[in-house]
């Protein structure tokens, strides 16, 4: 093979080669880290919220008249919602996954101050919660209607029953191998709550939270002038029902406003807007970068071909075949790219370590580095192919002309 001569020729004229290698190296550092961030965001976005997202819609009811009978409105609203054809179930709650705002409390397994707790999102609601949210009860029981009470704003206290997510149960009772149903935890430091049921999975309202899988249901109906309704519909009925239900509630009682009417898809879109924008921006950046680097290689190779016209002509005159000329440029580029991706691999890893420490990002997966290497090798080869083919068309007779 021609490795030796090509390598020596490169060393004689290394300025340009080093520049391309450096360019490939920095391109690789950007590419690897962008892909790593895109992958982190995409993974986050793919986590299930736990809700029956495709068939769920939500709106808020805000009452503004000081003398309004909020409880009556609440009861009436839910009855109307649940009785509408196409609606599977509905519930009044304080928040839901991906909403970005909600209530969290610390839970502990022993009562008392300064025990340190496990954080959990609190979802208030009645016995219709499980079906409306579309979660599965995997252990224990649902709330019975007698366990559910209306919240008293003048005397708030924690109801003694909760339904928790499996992840929360595992964090609270890590050593428990059997059922956690019947066990007692303490909320608000001293208030005992008994676990009566366990659901498979449900996210807290803050998708960026470290303990996003910690959530619990508390059997409380909140009707103090602000209610957030979640409605689960039959498949395919959601979009049709949203305006219909909104209109139905708004006209049923004019002392309040219906706001924030949206499907769960819209909730998800809003929650992950930043992440999906980041993916789009980074995707755009690495595409553009690859194009620029590729065009740079094309430009330099073209220059090199025209600079070496005579040299190539002489080689051809001395018997080098067209494929041999082609191979020369391809191999030369392969060597430069190899130096570039090796240096680039080191740069990429260094940059990733720095970013993980500074910005709390997830460390990259190992395969991103070899994948980026292969992509950049291929880009280099593709970029050099055109000029190299032009080189093969140089006639051997060029050698006989004086330059």
């Amino acid at each position: 093979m021609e490795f030796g001569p090509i390598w020596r020729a490169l060393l004689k004229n290394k300025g340009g080669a080093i520049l391309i290698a450096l360019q490939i190296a920095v391109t690789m550092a950007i590419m690897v880290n962008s892909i790593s961030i895109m992958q982190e965001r995409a993974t986050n976005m793919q986590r299930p919220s736990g809700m029956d997202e495709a068939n769920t819609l939500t709106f808020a009811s805000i009452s503004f008249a000081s003398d309004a009978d909020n409880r009556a409105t609440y009861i009436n609203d839910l009855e109307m919602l649940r009785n509408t054809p196409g609606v599977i179930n509905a519930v009044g709650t304080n928040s839901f996954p991906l909403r970005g705002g909600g209530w969290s409390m610390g839970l502990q397994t022993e009562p008392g101050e300064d025990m340190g707790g496990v954080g959990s999102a609190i979802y208030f609601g009645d016995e219709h919660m499980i079906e409306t949210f579309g979660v599965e009860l995997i252990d224990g029981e649902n709330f019975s209607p007698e366990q559910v009470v209306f919240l008293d704003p003048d005397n708030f206290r924690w109801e003694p029953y909760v339904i928790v997510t499996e992840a929360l149960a595992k964090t609270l009772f890590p050593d428990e191998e059997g059922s956690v149903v019947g066990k007692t935890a303490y909320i608000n430091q001293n208030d005992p709550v008994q676990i009566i049921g366990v659901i498979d999975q449900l996210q807290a309202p803050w998708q960026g939270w470290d303990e996003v899988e910690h959530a619990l249901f508390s059997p409380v109906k909140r009707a103090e002038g602000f209610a957030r309704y979640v409605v689960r519909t039959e498949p395919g009925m959601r979009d049709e029902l949203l305006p219909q239900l909104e209109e139905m509630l708004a006209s049923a009682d004019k002392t309040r406003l219906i706001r924030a009417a949206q499907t769960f898809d819209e909730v998800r879109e809003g929650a992950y807007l930043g992440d999906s924008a980041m993916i789009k921006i980074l995707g755009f950046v690495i595409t553009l970068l690859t194009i620029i680097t590729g065009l740079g290689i094309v430009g330099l190779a073209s220059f090199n071909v025209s600079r070496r016209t005579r040299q190539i002509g002489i080689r051809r005159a001395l018997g080098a075949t067209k494929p041999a000329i082609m191979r020369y440029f391809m191999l030369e580029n392969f060597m430069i790219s190899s130096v570039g991706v090796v240096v680039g691999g080191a740069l990429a890893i260094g940059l990733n370590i720095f970013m993980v420490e500074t910005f709390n990002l997830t460390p990259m997966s190992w395969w991103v580095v070899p994948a980026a290497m292969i992509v950049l090798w291929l880009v280099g080869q593709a970029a050099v192919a055109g000029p190299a083919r032009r080189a093969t068309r140089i006639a051997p007779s060029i050698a006989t002309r004086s330059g």
Partner: protein
Amino acid sequence: MFRYYLKLGALSIRANPALSALMVAAIAIGIGACMTIFTIQHMMGSNPIPHKSEQLRHVQMDSWSDANPYNGGANPPIQLTYTDARNLLAAEQAVRQIATFKSGRIVEPEDPDELPYTISGRATSKDFFAMFDVPFKYGSAWDAAADLSEEFVAVISEPLNERMFGGEDSTGKRVTMNGDTFRIVGVLDTWSPVVKFYDLNNNAHEPVEDIFFPFSTAMANEYGNDGNTNCWKPPEGGDRAAFLNSECIWIQFWVEIPNQAAETEYMNYLDAYVEQQKELGRFPRPLDNRLPDVEEWMILNEVVDDDVSVLLGLAVLFLIVCLLNTIGLLLAKVMRRTKDISLRRALGASKASLFGQYIIEAGMIGVAGGLLGIGTTWLGLLGIRNLFNRFDFVEKLTVMDWQMTALAIALAVVSALAAALYPTWRACQVTPASQLRIQ
């Protein structure tokens, strides 16, 4: 000579249109990427009240739990309890002081056919407007008496005045919200600080509130808080009085400190206050009072999103790739002209004049790249605005001011010149007549 070199540069650029275009485009794209992100970072973190930011201080006191210090003990809580806000407000130890929180309202229009609508609201005291240099279009802030006697008076924003009264002078008119009727005493002029520095709890870049009313009135009528509430210890009881007496933090508190002496004096007062509260069994943590100014407050509250910093780092690397690209291409160009250069050197051109010639050629590419870079930055900002079109505030963050425009051009020229240095130096190394052998 300069004009001659310009002409030579233009000729050389025209001789290789594709490559010259590639160089200009690479610089423009690199500049565009950098400047787009830098503009957003610049706007996100820009001081919204530069002439006064050092005099405006948020009060921080460590009222948190000893067992579980706030933020791991790195800094005191970022809000105050109602108890402390009320005490500090009543003590009036600073030139001006305000306690404030966010509280959304529902407007009930007088015309029964018109539907009620929600607006954002803020409970605060009269000093708010003077402290933060809030401009008025009509009327003025309410007076101290209104704060004292919990009056139903309000100042409304320009957009709300537009919506409710078509933009005319509405002072003296009334607005009913959630059953309470307020008298409008002032209408703000356009006021949209890029950073809503006085309350960074939720979205640091959201617009200012639609309506402002006295803190005392809001408390007397039990208005709810729309911001964040954090508690380390449960309230001793389930009603509002217990909540107000609790260690829950939910109020922003600002003071105006005109000079160093006033700062020392206020710090002393705060220390004495906390010591006194410690005797009452509160403030279990060691004494840690702080008075961060607006810029320090913005840094503590991380108003610049981490994602923007990550993107800025990547954008700078991107520009480096574009420059390496340009250096490579310029170098190739020089190497192809070694014969030319050696001939000129043989005919008496000095290194200095060759240097001038190639630097001018590179500079032309740099200026072209910079001008085009303003265009690409503008496109980049447009793209970002589209990605975030659900949020109004993105409009404020994606504006290229003259500083950013000047910076874009400067960055382009400096980049192109930096990129030209090595190729030009190589050109100057060509020895006279070395390439003139007959081959």
